[in-house]
Structure formats: C-alpha cells, structure tokens
C-alpha cells in the first residue's frame, strides 16, 4: 500500500512541476466560473448550483483526459515504465498510484469552486444537501473519466492519441442517452443506464442512489483492471 502512495506522491510532484496541470486547472476554473456567473444572473430568483452542475460534466469529459493523457503514454515513450516494471512494485500498484494522483488533482480543482456555493449561501437559504450531492456526483464522474483516461493512456505511447481516445469514450458515454431520443423499451433503458450524464443528473438532484454509485464504481473498476492488463501485456 505504501508503494501506491510513493507513486501518487511522485505523480503529484510531476503535476505541479509541469505546465499542463496549471493550464488545465485554470481553464477549468475560468470556464465553469463563467458558466456559474452567467447562470447566476439567468435565474436570480432561484438559489441553486443547477447551472454549474449541469455544465460541469461536459467539461470534465475533456479535462479529465487532459489530466490523465500523459500518465502512461509518456512513461511508455521514455522507457521509465519499463524500468519501473522491473522493480518490486506490482502493475496494479502503479495504476492505483497514478489514479489517486489524478483524483487528488481533480479534488483540488473542485475545492477551488467552493466559493460559488459559499457566495450563494450568503444571499439566502441554499440547499446544502443538493450541493453536497452535486459535488459527490462530480467526484464520482471525475473518477470515472479519470479511469477511462488512464486506460486510454495505457494503450498508446502518444499523448495526443490518449486524450482523443479518452475524450471520444467520455463523450460517447455522456451523450449515449440523448442519442436514443425518447426512451422506450429495453434497449433505450440500457442506453440510459450506460450514460454517465443520466446517473449524474439523478445524483445532482440531491438523491444519491445505490444504482448510480454502483454504475460509476463498475466503470471505474473495469477501466482500472483493463489498464493493469494493458501495461502487463508490455506491448510497446
């Protein structure tokens, strides 16, 4: 378990030593900040974070892959992963270490948006339960996209391929329920259940249901296992 921590610590150090992390953090804050600001004036009569939580998942589909794109791709390209894999550390420990590092970075970014609900709460009675649920949903969604991004990064030596692949998968999962139109029947139900945004919407309403959590955790689990197998195949 210690080794997961060592990898996480190293990756976090690298994030804050590189420009990418800062660019991603600033862009995310600027974009979500302006959306929050705009929706704030849109519905002055309603005190809620709805506008922010409605839009954030879309941007996460891009920002999470941007955070994860280099995690394996650059290490494969430079050969550091090969060296690491001859040391006494398991593939799964490497994957989890990197996953946690990306999650911590995301958590820091989300924490930086906390002034939005705080500002709102000063204007009246804000439903903190819904806000809390929204952030929990964001973390779950962020973890899912991070796991997908990590998986895509483990497939290639090229960061650009990694981010595009991850973005494609994230967007597909985000849009799949809207692609089927008015849902009827089993197929539509499956499409809805496979959609990240469907589950996020239901959490953001303030109700954290087991089926939503189970969905996110299973996608995360599958992606992390595939990532571990993928680097174990040593094809690069």
């Amino acid at each position, binding site marked *: 378990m*210690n080794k997961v921590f060592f990898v996480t610590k190293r990756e976090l150090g690298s994030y804050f*030593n590189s420009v990418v992390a800062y660019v991603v953090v600033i862009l995310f804050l600027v974009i979500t900040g302006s959306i929050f600001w705009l929706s704030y004036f849109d519905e002055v009569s309603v005190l809620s974070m709805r506008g922010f939580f409605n839009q954030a998942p879309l941007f996460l589909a891009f920002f999470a892959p941007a955070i994860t794109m280099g995690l394996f791709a650059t290490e494969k390209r430079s*050969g*550091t992963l090969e060296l690491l894999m001859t040391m*006494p550390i398991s593939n799964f420990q490497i994957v989890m270490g990197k996953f946690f590092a990306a999650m911590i970075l995301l958590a820091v970014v989300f924490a930086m948006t906390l002034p939005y609900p705080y500002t709102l709460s000063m204007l009246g009675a804000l439903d903190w339960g819904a806000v809390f649920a929204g952030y929990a949903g964001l973390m779950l969604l962020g973890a899912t996209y991070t796991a997908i991004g990590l998986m895509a990064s483990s497939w290639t030596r*090229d960061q650009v*391929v990694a981010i595009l692949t991850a973005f494609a998968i994230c967007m597909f999962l985000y849009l799949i329920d809207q692609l089927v139109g008015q849902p009827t029947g089993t197929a539509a139900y499956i499409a809805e259940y496979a959609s990240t945004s469907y589950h996020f919407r239901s959490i953001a309403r303030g109700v954290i249901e087991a089926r939503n959590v189970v969905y996110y955790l299973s996608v995360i689990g599958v992606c992390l296992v595939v990532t571990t197998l993928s680097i174990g195949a040593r094809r690069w």
Partner: protein
Amino acid sequence: MDDKQQNTEESIVVDGLRKSYGDVDALRGIDFGVRSGEIVGFLGPNGAGKTTTMKILTGFMAATDGHARVAGFDVHRQSDQVRKKIGYLPENVPLYDEMLVYDYLRFIAEVQEVKRAHRDERIDAVAELTGIDAVMGRTISELSKGYRQRVGLAQAIIHEPEVIILDEPTTGLDPNQIVEIRDVITTIGQEKTIIFSTHIMQEVTAVCDRIIIIDDGELVADGTLDELEEKALEATPGVMVSFEGGDEEDLRNYLEGLGAVTGVVDVSGRQKTHKFRLLSDDISELRKAIIDGESRTPRGLLSLRAAEPTLEEIFRLYTAKNDDEQVDEEVDGEEEISAEAVDCQPVEKPEEVAGE
C-alpha cells in the same frame, strides 16, 4: 535445496533461451552462466539479441522458450523475488526528466524497499560513488548525457542488488566519460555480479572478468579474454612483418611468393613503412623463409613477430564466420537492424486497440 546451491554459485543461469517476435527470431536458444561476483561483458553486433536477453533477465519480457534464473529465482515464475535482487539500467537511460536528481533517487529508494532509516544514507552513498553530489539539486532534464548515465547507474545500485544488469552503459559518451563510467563499474563490481552489454570490444578488456559474445541470437563465444585471444590465434595463425621503404607492390609479390604463406593482408598505414599480416599454417617455416630472404636481398625488415589478434579480430572471428558469408552478413546486418527495431517498437501497435 537445489535452488540454494545455485544461489551461492551461479548468480545468473540461462538455459536454452529463445525469443521470437512474430516471424523474427531474436534469440535462438542461448545458454550461459555467471558466477556470483563476476563482471561479464555481453558482446555482440547491433541487433544480436543483447537487449532482448537483458529484458528477459530482468523479468520485463517473457521468453518464448527456455529458462533463466537470477539469484536463484526463475525470472518468469518468481519475478517478484527476482525484482528485489536486481538493479537494471536500460539502454536509453529512462529517467523522469521533470524531477530533481535527489527526488528521483528518493523515489527509487522508496520503490526498491530501502528502509526509511537508511534512505538518506544510501542516496548519499550512491551519489558519492557515481560522482553526482554536485547535481543532486538539479532537474534531470538539465543534465548532460554523462550525468544522466551516472544517475541511471545510481538508481540501479541504490538498493544494493545482488545482480546488476547494464544495457550499453557507455554508449554516446565521450572518452573521458567512458573511462569514468568504467571506473564506477569496476568499483561496484568488487562486490556485485555485473553483466553489461556493449558492442565496443575495448570496453570489456578494461573491466570484465569474462566475455560472452552473441551473434544473430546465438551464443558464439564464452570465456576470459585470454581464452578468446588464444582461440582467435589458433583460428588465424600468422605473423606480422614490417619493412622500411621499398615498393609496396613488390614487397607484396615477394611475400606471396614465399613458401609457407597462405595469405597476405596489408595493414600498413604509415609513410615509408609497410606492414603486412601474413597468414600461414606453418609459422616456423614462414619465419625461416622471411629471414633467409632478408639475408639474401635486404628489403629493410624492421620487425617480425607473432600476430596477436586484435580485439576487433576476435570480435570479427566470432561474429562473421568466414569471407564467403560476409556479403550475406551485410544483408543480415540490415535485417538485424529491423529486428532491433522490433525490440523497442510494439509488434502490435496498441493504438490499434485504442482505435477499435
């Protein structure tokens, strides 16, 4: 019980190792052993299978067939134990460019299970040994190639491994740096088993107890430098003669006309002296013929001595079987480059998986 015995005697045992990348056979069944405490030079032309062998020894890559044991453990089935016993420096010295040298060594010490109380002590020790004290606070991307190589060596020995595997540790360095790295290897080698690959013959004479030469995926020679020299001498017996002045063409014709001579190789480079390597099956007859000839008509014989095989000749002797094969070998050489490209490129590109 058998394992224990091997552990004390043989640090590395390689038994019938084969590796194929698709249709390309990188290793065609090699066997060798390295005793504990030995420094072994692993030689071969580019693409001979050196890197592949090393990747298998580190457990990074699985062999197609055959077995390898490092420090008494099977590299494939007991990879976890093997990983704790080895230090490895891959060919292109992969390092985390954005990290400070100190932070990097600390990370490696952590992953390599160096006890917390000893970490600083070990970091200081390897820094001193490899001569990187002065750059501990620098970012790795700022380092010169020589320093990178030293940092790579430092990470390979920080956990005091039993077996150290170095893949071309001196490639791309200038002569001074090469000497420095060799000194470091010699120092480490006083206590550890080291196997390092190179395609530069001089490298091995400076530091190695033993030489293993592989070519085209097969082991072609295994022994001490003296043993290999002797074999080379037996294979191409001859004498070196040099003459002062005279017409080169005349001298050559004269030498070819001598009784015991089977071949004349011109090795002269300097002005006014002509140096030849004479091949012969009967050295004493040849010597007699030359000295007799000199007393009859002086040609300015400067020296006459047994031809010691040069390192290059030993290398060529083992890696290029005879003259007829040399044309083939050059064609092979190109194939071998592509075989080495397979070495570092994925056979099946992962991007294709991503695209599905």
